[in-house]
């Protein structure tokens, strides 16, 4: 019997080639999107799961509270003493491993590269994380100081085909390290990607960090600390014991300002968005968002199938009737139509697979992923595809199946079915749902676009264009004056300023601030972020002063005891008028001095963050970041000049630089990707919806051929007929706009709240989305309407 059904299904598909094409391509496009997004979601969900103990590994995080109890800083890292102390105070913890991310100039023979993703790691790292060691002994490779392990690609980069074990290389031209092993890199789906592992005992050396610092430096929270816990361990119990643990080990009341917490390894990528993370993480919200988009596109494609199938049912009604007369039970007919739709969906699946393969490189391009086709062949994924195809076939086929088989056999054979098809309430509802989804996507695209434009044009309060960023070796701070002088000799260099951090990065450092209360200095409850700058930083970035003056070489105390605040800092410290702050005594950490000026607020961090209170002061030794403001007219010349001086000043350091506007772009990379994805999927949603609309309008026109003929005979013009045929569809599209607008408004409001500074959702977005969708729908429908309206009435009447 199934053989008979399939044969008939194929013949039907072939007979209605155009509709089959519309139908299959709609479903195939929908499935392609669905599969691509499923690959993306699967990838996001698979982070850090390659480790054997993945479900027992937890990362320690540390939160600092302001005196008023509000969170001032949340770190995914902790101070170095925590690890060993936790192991000591909680004996049930099986292993504790600490990682310190660093980088530097690696030199082996004539090969020299600045390297990142260098992790100093406790020797038991391989007991916690499952990593494949290809050479060397994983049990002791990281035991001795100045041992280093290379990832396989890095070993090939430095040593080619030579055996890396035992090779000696220099780091930062100071210390020598011996290669003790080679490991296979962690998969892309990992929250950290070490290229090198350095033995933790190296840090005991005073030239590197010092054993004392490891024991007692509670302020240097840059160690990622991971715990391997026993099976079925109650993590909340340990977290509850952390306050007492801190008060015991750091100082009494330490728990009032420092909070420790644990997060499961496998949750880090999607749920952890702290102020410090090893790499930028993903976000579970996007997983939800993309899942939702994937689902909705599939829904749109299913609706297409349902609508076209019910519309075409008019032509197949006779078949249903006849089968019933002959003795087919309804169940058998339902089965027949379901197997037909499943067949169609499976054909679409095959096409979709090819399309996925074709689209994957481009998709990888803007999702910054390395998704591979192999995942499609993974048995679980293949089973999922099969399941989805079956499910889609069932869902898409169910309505036509039950609808068609409900026909009374006699009525059908007498041709009474056409009329009832014209006003299918359900079909109209489905078209509305379809277009509503498309309109939501259009509005979302418009809002994301306008927010990105807003960000681009936002007055940041500083200059971000033509800014070259250099990283100074620490030893250069003392003779920087000379370097600066030489750089400025070239007319293409406008200004050169130094700072501890550069705009577009986070401000993470803060000390206690004190102001005069009555006649003595009193500590404030306010967290003020610190930024070390030299006297040229403010002019380089063209930051405006609101009151007072910038640092100056004319005042010797400016290098030691002077502060410049931003407006927000002045406000939170309690001065109503910025000028009032100037001249006051101010103490920050151990530095006691005077406020000499106030800058206008500028958006140092991304627009996701509100402007923080900032105190700027000149602290030698922390000014490693150099910003060079150049004229835009001769980029190559300016860069050549900087390069030349760099090579002369630092002959052992490769010349590396970046542009601020590139960094700035990266701040919103996620949103840019979203914008691209939104526009693409909105486009696809509209396209599939229109395919459906096209098919529907063709059928409606066919059903109304006689009516059109009669109207023409009675004198109707082509124009009036076109509007007659198009009107019904437009009504549906307008209803869908009305339904979609509030949904889109709410969704985008939530999205925008993630930005501390965001655009409003302009009123014109709605009419714009409306005009776009109506326009597209009109073009789609009118093609058929005009065609039908132009037919010679004699023809259309005869056809009945």
């Amino acid at each position, binding site marked *: 019997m199934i053989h*008979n059904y399939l044969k008939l299904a194929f*013949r039907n598909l072939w007979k209605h080639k155009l509709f089959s094409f519309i139908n299959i391509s709609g479903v195939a496009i929908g499935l392609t999107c669905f599969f691509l997004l499923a690959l993306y979601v699967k990838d996001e969900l698979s982070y850090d799961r390659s480790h054997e103990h993945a479900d027992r590994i937890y990362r320690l995080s540390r939160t600092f509270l302001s005196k008023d109890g509000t969170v001032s800083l949340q770190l995914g890292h902790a101070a170095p003493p925590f690890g060993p102390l936790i192991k000591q105070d909680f004996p049930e913890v099986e292993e504790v491993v600490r990682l310190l991310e660093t980088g530097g100039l690696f030199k082996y023979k004539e090969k020299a590269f600045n390297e990142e993703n260098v992790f100093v790691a406790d020797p038991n790292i391989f007991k916690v994380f499952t990593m494949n060691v290809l050479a060397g002994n994983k049990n002791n490779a990281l035991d001795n100081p100045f041992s280093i392990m290379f990832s396989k690609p890095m070993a090939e980069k430095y040593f080619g085909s030579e055996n890396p074990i035992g090779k000696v290389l220099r780091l930062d031209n100071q210390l020598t390290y011996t290669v003790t092993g080679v490991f296979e890199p962690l998969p892309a789906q990992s929250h950290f990607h070490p290229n090198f592992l350095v033995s933790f005992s190296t840090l005991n050396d005073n030239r590197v960090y010092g054993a004392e610092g490891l024991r007692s430096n509670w302020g240097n929270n840059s160690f990622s600390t991971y715990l391997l816990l026993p099976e079925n361990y109650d993590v909340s119990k340990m977290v509850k014991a952390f306050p007492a643990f801190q008060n015991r080990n750091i100082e009494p009341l330490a728990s009032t300002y420092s909070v420790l917490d644990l997060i499961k390894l496998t949750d880090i990528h999607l749920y952890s968005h702290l102020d410090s993370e090893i790499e930028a993480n993903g976000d579970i919200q996007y997983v939800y968002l993309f899942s939702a988009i994937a689902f909705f596109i599939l829904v749109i494609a299913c609706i297409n199938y349902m609508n076209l199938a019910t519309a075409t049912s008019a032509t197949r009604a006779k*078949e249903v009737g006849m089968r*019933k*007369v002959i*003795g087919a039970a*309804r169940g058998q007919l339902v089965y027949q139509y379901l197997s037909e739709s499943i067949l169609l969906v499976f054909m679409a699946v095959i096409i979709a697979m090819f399309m996925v393969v074709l689209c994957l490189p481009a998709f990888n391009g803007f999702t910054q992923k390395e998704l591979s086709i192999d995942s499609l062949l993974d048995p679980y994924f293949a089973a999922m595809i099969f399941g989805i195809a079956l499910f889609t076939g069932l869902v898409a086929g169910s309505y036509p199946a039950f609808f068609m088989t409900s026909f009374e056999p*006699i009525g059908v054979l007498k041709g009474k079915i056409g009329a009832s098809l014209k006003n299918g309430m359900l079909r109209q509802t489905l078209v509305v749902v379809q277009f509503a989804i498309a309109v939501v996507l259009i509005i979302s695209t418009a809002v994301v676009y306008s927010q990105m434009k807003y960000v681009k044009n936002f007055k940041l309060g500083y200059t971000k264009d033509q800014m070259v960023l250099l990283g100074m070796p620490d030893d250069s701070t003392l003779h920087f004056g000379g370097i600066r002088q030489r750089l400025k000799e070239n007319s293409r260099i406008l200004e050169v300023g130094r700072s501890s951090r550069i705009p577009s990065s986070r401000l993470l450092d803060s000390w206690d601030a004190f102001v005069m209360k009555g006649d003595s200095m009193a500590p404030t409850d306010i967290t003020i972020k610190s930024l070390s700058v030299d006297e040229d930083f403010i002019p380089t970035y063209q930051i405006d002063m609101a009151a007072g003056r910038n640092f100056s070489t004319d005042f010797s105390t400016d290098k030691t005891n002077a502060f410049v605040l931003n407006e927000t800092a002045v406000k939170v410290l309690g001065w109503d008028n910025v000028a009032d702050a100037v001249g006051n005594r101010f103490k920050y950490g151990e530095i006691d001095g005077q406020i000499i000026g106030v800058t206008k607020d500028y958006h140092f961090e991304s627009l996701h963050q509100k402007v923080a209170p900032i105190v700027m002061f000149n602290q030698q030794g922390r000014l490693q970041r150099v910003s060079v403001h150049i004229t835009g007219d001769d980029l190559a010349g300016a860069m050549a000049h900087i390069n030349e001086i760099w090579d002369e000043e630092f002959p052992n350091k490769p010349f590396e630089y970046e542009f601020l506007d590139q960094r700035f772009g990266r701040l919103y990379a996620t949103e840019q990707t979203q914008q691209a994805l939104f526009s693409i999927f909105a486009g696809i949603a509209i396209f599939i919806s229109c395919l459906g609309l096209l098919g529907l309008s063709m059928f409606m026109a066919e059903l109304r051929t006689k009516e059109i003929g009669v109207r023409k005979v009675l004198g109707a013009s082509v124009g009036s007929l076109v509007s007659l045929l198009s009107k019904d569809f437009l009504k549906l599209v307008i209803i869908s706009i009305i339904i979609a607008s509030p949904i889109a408004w709410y969704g985008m409001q939530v999205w925008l709240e993630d930005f501390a500074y965001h655009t409003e959702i302009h009123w014109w977005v709605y009419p714009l989305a409306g005009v776009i969708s109506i326009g597209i729908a009109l073009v789609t429908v009118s093609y058929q309407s005009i065609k039908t309206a132009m037919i010679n009435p004699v023809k259309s009447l005869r056809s009945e």
Partner: protein
Amino acid sequence: MLTITNLQKIFATEEVETTALNGINLTINDGEFVAIMGPSGCGKSTLLNIIGLLDNPSSGTYNFYGSDVEKMSERQRAQLRKGNVGFVFQSFNLIDELTVFENVELPLLYLKVPSKERDEKVEATLKRMNMMHRRNHFPQQLSGGQQQRVAIARAVVAKPKLILADEPTGNLDSANGKDVMNLLQELNEEGTTIAMVTHSPYDASFAHRTVNLFDGKIVTENFHV
């Protein structure tokens, strides 16, 4: 034997009620060939549909070979119809996407007849209808007369007790029409009961008995000898 007693059929829409059949009493004996005649709209087809178990009467009783069927659900009627009743329509109602062979095979599929037996039966029937050479053609490729022969083949392939024909020659020219009538007569002579709705006195002359309907009532019955 089919026995219809005091049968009524009323079609009700929201605004009007139409009495299509009103107090019909009719018995059709096994092996009989009955023609039903009457002007358009007198209820001929409605009666035929009820006889063929495609529809239920509004009131009255109908005994179909020993079963009371007037209250049966569509599902039960479908079950009973299957294999027991064959239909021939004026407009043939062949399924366009199926070949001649497949159209004729369809009732056997729903009766779950094994494949080999199916082939034999379909071939035998097609031979009998002289349509074997067209077995792989699609309905659109056949003439009207040929299509009706296929429809008759489909109606008889499962060897039903009863064949119902609704103006079987209505869409055919006289030569083809005569052909179809001869086929029906042959089937009847082999023992199949036939009830046929027709406008044509010539067609009716093939029957043993003609029932004349007017405004939903049987007005006369003529017996042919």
